[in-house]
């Protein structure tokens, strides 16, 4: 078993947290994982991305140029990473911010997730990242969304623990969207 993904967006969209939670969930599921952040020098507003590699064997490279999956939360990320995804790979697009024409991929497996609208339904637009992560867990078949939820207490800083229920709800919504097909 081997899987890698680049998760990218604006700083502040919570892409690093998505990577962290995914890595934590995969580790709890008994996998080998690496999480590698890449960001600019700005504390806010710059572009940010991280790479998560999940494998049965110890992970060699924590970075990949042509990933099996890209999760793109904004337009620059879509333009940069979607074309790099392998032919049979997977692209998850934040369709609340990225219009179709900016997503050029070799793979046919491109999924649109209206993260913002769905997050607002849950009650907080900042949960867009969790909606997307739920979708990613479901569509990739990497980990069950409940396993992702179970890893939240370890992945989130203690001061955010009161947010776990609402984060869980967002994760489930994202997963449900993908199970509907």
């Amino acid at each position, binding site marked *: 078993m081997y899987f890698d993904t680049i998760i990218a967006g604006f700083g502040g969209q919570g892409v690093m947290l998505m990577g962290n939670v995914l890595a934590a969930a995969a*580790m709890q599921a008994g996998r*080998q*994982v690496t999480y*590698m952040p890449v960001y600019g020098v700005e504390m806010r507003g710059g572009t940010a991305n991280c790479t998560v590699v999940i494998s049965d064997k110890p992970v060699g490279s924590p970075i*990949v140029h042509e990933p099996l999956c890209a999760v793109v939360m904004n337009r620059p990320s879509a333009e940069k990473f979607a074309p790099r995804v392998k032919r049979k790979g997977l692209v998850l697009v934040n369709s609340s911010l990225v219009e179709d024409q900016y997503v050029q991929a070799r793979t046919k497996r491109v999924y649109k997730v209206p993260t913002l609208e769905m997050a607002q339904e849950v009650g907080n637009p900042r949960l867009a990242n969790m909606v997307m992560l739920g979708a990613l867990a479901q569509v990739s078949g990497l980990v069950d969304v409940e396993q992702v939820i179970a890893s939240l207490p370890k*992945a989130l800083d203690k001061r955010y623990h009161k947010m776990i229920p609402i984060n869980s709800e967002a994760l489930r919504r994202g997963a449900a969207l993908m199970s509907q097909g």
Partner: protein
Amino acid sequence: MAQRVLIKGNEAIGKGALAAGCRFYFGYPITPQNDIPEFMSAELPKVGGTFIQAESEVASINMLLGAAATGARAMTSSSSPGISLKQEGISYLCGSEIPGVIVNMSRSGPGLGGIHPSQGDYFQATRGGGHGDYRTLVLAPSTAQENYDLTMLAFDLADKYRNPVLILGDALLGNIKEPVELKPYRKKPPRKDWALTGCKGRQQQILKSLYLADGELTERNWVLWKKYQSMQKEARWEEYRLEDAKLAVVAFGSVARILKSSVDMLRDKGHQVGILRPITLYPFPSQAVKETAQRVGRLMVVELNTGQMVEDVKLAAECQAQVDFYGRPPGSIPTPDELAKEILKVIKKGGAR
């Protein structure tokens, strides 16, 4: 089984230091190692330790010198430009035979350079870096787990040889997050009869590096040389898929782990290639390189610089093998595919035996 946690490479360094009984940390902020002082500032007070954010790198290393002179386990960390500033203190630590652990989560240079991973500090680390004829032990981790394990080892080696030990990582190894098994530290730190604790009940003790009397410094340098010779037995390395290899790639640290993916790709295509990864950069695993050179006949060195360790490899290989080189200066991290292509070029070039 020891606790397994998903933590950042920098934090693994901090946890390793705490586990090994380090109770004194002195540092100064610089990217990409800030997680280390941040971690130590939060954790040391909980165990009765001391954290000082010093006024400079120069002050940090000298605070370490002071604390370690009393026998305490002490650490400082920085990144390339900051390590340049610490060279004065490192030279004095060597001259005065005071142990200490110095972490370089290196960035890129020269000058202010950038915050990309780079292995441009290899010469600085292995050649001393400061003034005088001295050596520091240099450990080069390749995973967050090794950040943890080798930090504990660093304290043991520092005490064993009364010498500073450098941990040379880079931005990739500092920022990567991966599972780390928090193995407990089981060693018993040695007695330090040389430590300065006040002369009650004994003769005055002095830790110094100034020797002006006739012949004194010559003798002193030979004593240190003998010590550096005795360190040679600490050479450590890892061999990866080398058994039947026709080409051995020699690489350390972050790029060595990327190369493992490249080697796996090439092996899948039937190419007989493996990796020799020095874990200690000083002492350099010269014997292992020489034996590999003799057995495999073909070496390729890959570094995130324009060619530094390749000199040590050539020296160790003693012309027993052709040595190719691929260097990547800082700015981007090479991907496994890119490195596989470079290795393939060397394989296709043929030659050697």
